[in-house]
């Protein structure tokens, strides 16, 4: 609205919006607070909100006892590796589809997206057995391959939409200016596409980091990423809430930050353009 909303209305809206926001955010907030408590405080009733002894011991314990960093490293390698690998396949494919559309380009794109809709359980058994026989169970390489394939359709789709937004005339101008195909890509296309490529990477890293079907089923210890590590708290010994909170906070913090920056890509990527 171009006109100023009445202050009263704004106050009411602000209050309700903040209430809603805090309610939704509360589990995360509570988790972070709990991570700074001792286990006894974490389990205490009534729950202590602010006035307790704040401590960072849990963060240390989680790292010492369960080698948190190793799982984090696996997450980074798997999420990063699968994303980069999918770029290798996706950039040329998206480029070709965006700038040399054929009769079947749209159908091809739709088919690619449809592969994402296959339920993972349909492929679980063969993949598990294949991996077992090939020695790929509990390997980072195997997971990188699987996650790459899982996210390839979305990466191709997102890059396609970003490439399509580059005006074709600018590429034609570079051709008139004497650029060969390779130089056209290096000097003109890539610099213009970098924001789009970066946002696609971002979203993809987030999705791969949080992936919790294949990571849970195909890894046990060596290649286990953070999703698996946190899952080990489902059958713990003794008091563990504070440690769980610390581990969880560390596991999700980077992604929350990245996620904030990739909201628009989320809409674009996961609705396959059906909503603009």
């Amino acid at each position, binding site marked *: 609205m171009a006109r100023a909303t009445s202050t009263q209305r704004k106050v009411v809206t602000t209050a309700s919006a903040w209430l809603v926001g805090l309610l939704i955010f509360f589990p995360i907030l509570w988790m972070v607070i709990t991570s700074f408590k001792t286990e006894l405080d974490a389990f205490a009733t009534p729950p202590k909100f602010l006035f307790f002894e704040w401590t960072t011991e849990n963060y240390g314990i989680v790292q010492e006892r369960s080698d948190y960093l190793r799982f984090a490293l696996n997450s980074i390698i798997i999420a990063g590796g699968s994303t980069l690998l999918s770029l290798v396949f996706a950039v040329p494919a998206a480029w070709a589809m965006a700038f040399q559309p054929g009769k079947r380009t749209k159908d091809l794109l739709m088919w690619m997206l449809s592969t994402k809709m296959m339920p993972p359980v349909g492929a679980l058994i063969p993949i598990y057995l294949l991996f077992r026989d090939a020695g790929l169970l509990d390997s980072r390489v195997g997971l990188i391959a699987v996650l790459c394939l899982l996210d390839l359709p979305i990466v191709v789709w997102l890059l396609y939409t970003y490439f399509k937004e580059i*005006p074709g*005339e*600018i590429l*034609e*101008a570079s051709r*008139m*200016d004497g*650029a060969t195909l390779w130089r056209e890509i290096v000097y003109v296309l890539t610099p213009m596409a970098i924001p789009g490529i970066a946002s696609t990477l971002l979203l993809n890293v987030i999705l791969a980091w949080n992936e919790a079907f294949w990571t849970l089923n195909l890894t046990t210890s060596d290649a286990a990423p953070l999703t698996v590590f946190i899952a080990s708290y489902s059958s713990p010994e003794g008091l563990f809430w504070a440690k769980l909170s610390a581990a969880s906070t560390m596991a999700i913090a980077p992604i929350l930050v990245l996620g904030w920056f990739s909201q628009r890509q989320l809409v674009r990527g996961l609705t396959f353009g059906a909503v603009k």
Partner: protein
Amino acid sequence: MGKIQLKGVSKSFGTVTIIPSLDLDIDDGEFVVFVGPSGCGKSTLLRLIAGLEDASGGKIEIDGLDVTEVPPAKRALSMVFQSYALYPHMSVRNNIGFGLKMAGQPKEVIRQKVEKAAAVLNLTNYLDRKPRQLSGGQRQRVAIGRAIVREPKAFLFDEPLSNLDAALRVQMRLEIAQLHQSLDTTMIYVTHDQVEAMTLADKIVVLHAGVIEQAGTPLELYHHPVNLFVAGFIGSPKMNFVATTVRAADPQGVTVELPGGGAVAVPVKADSVAAGAKVTLGVRPEHLKPADRGELSGDVIVTERLGGDTVLYLRPAGGAMIVVQTDGNSTTRVNDRIAVQIDPETCHLFGADGRAIPRLRRHPLADMQHPSQAH
């Protein structure tokens, strides 16, 4: 340098034929304008010459060399796009110099040439800015600078002024005309605006559905259009067309009957028509003079006063609307009944097939070369 020949060039997209088969010669240093309504194929033709589209058939030659299969980068042509197509991530300097960089020229040479072009185009103060910081007119100049600096055999312009406001358009039109005079390079210019065509061209090529309706100097097209389409396309306001019947045909000319009883003897060759034939009389609004008595009369429905000119829309008894362009001092008002005089020398007759019946005398200016043509 810069002589372009199109021989039997055709272009189809799938089953849709945009250009059936086209022949055209463009001389070195000529300013040729492709003009026509939307979808007539003028941009397609330009892009075929540029190499951005493959011809479906025929040959394209530049200076005698067959370039039909040669990619755009190797044709030594420059193009100015409608949307300017500047590289958004590069400065003005790098935009202009990009083509030279691709050609592998040494940095110092590039720097000099870029600065020279920038001086000519008044861009020296903007060399280090990015396109998004420039106005529409400035971006246009950068696009032109980028084209000039490569010293191409010919410049191709694809509706370069369409995105500018009216005042800027006039100014840029002048600058392009001056550019042609100073560079003396072949220029091929596409527009849908016939004013740009008339003012800039040495030769206008009127296209319609992929076919050349007529190619000639601006005044030739104005005074001797070969068919109804060209006659109606060139000239603003549009030529009036009146359906008439031939009363008599003799060596002096063809006399036709006008609605309302009047008649006019048009000085055209009489061999192809006989009395009773249905023909179309064409006369431009600026050639109709309001008077006390005249061959046509009617009620004024709308008046448009532009200050320098007045345009009157007449409804004659039993006929289609007639447009008259007259002096700005006219005091005629809506609902006045006025008569107009028709000078037979300014009339055109078109047969039933739409083609113009040839005139007996050629207009003295019709073959005048454009002042920029020194050869």
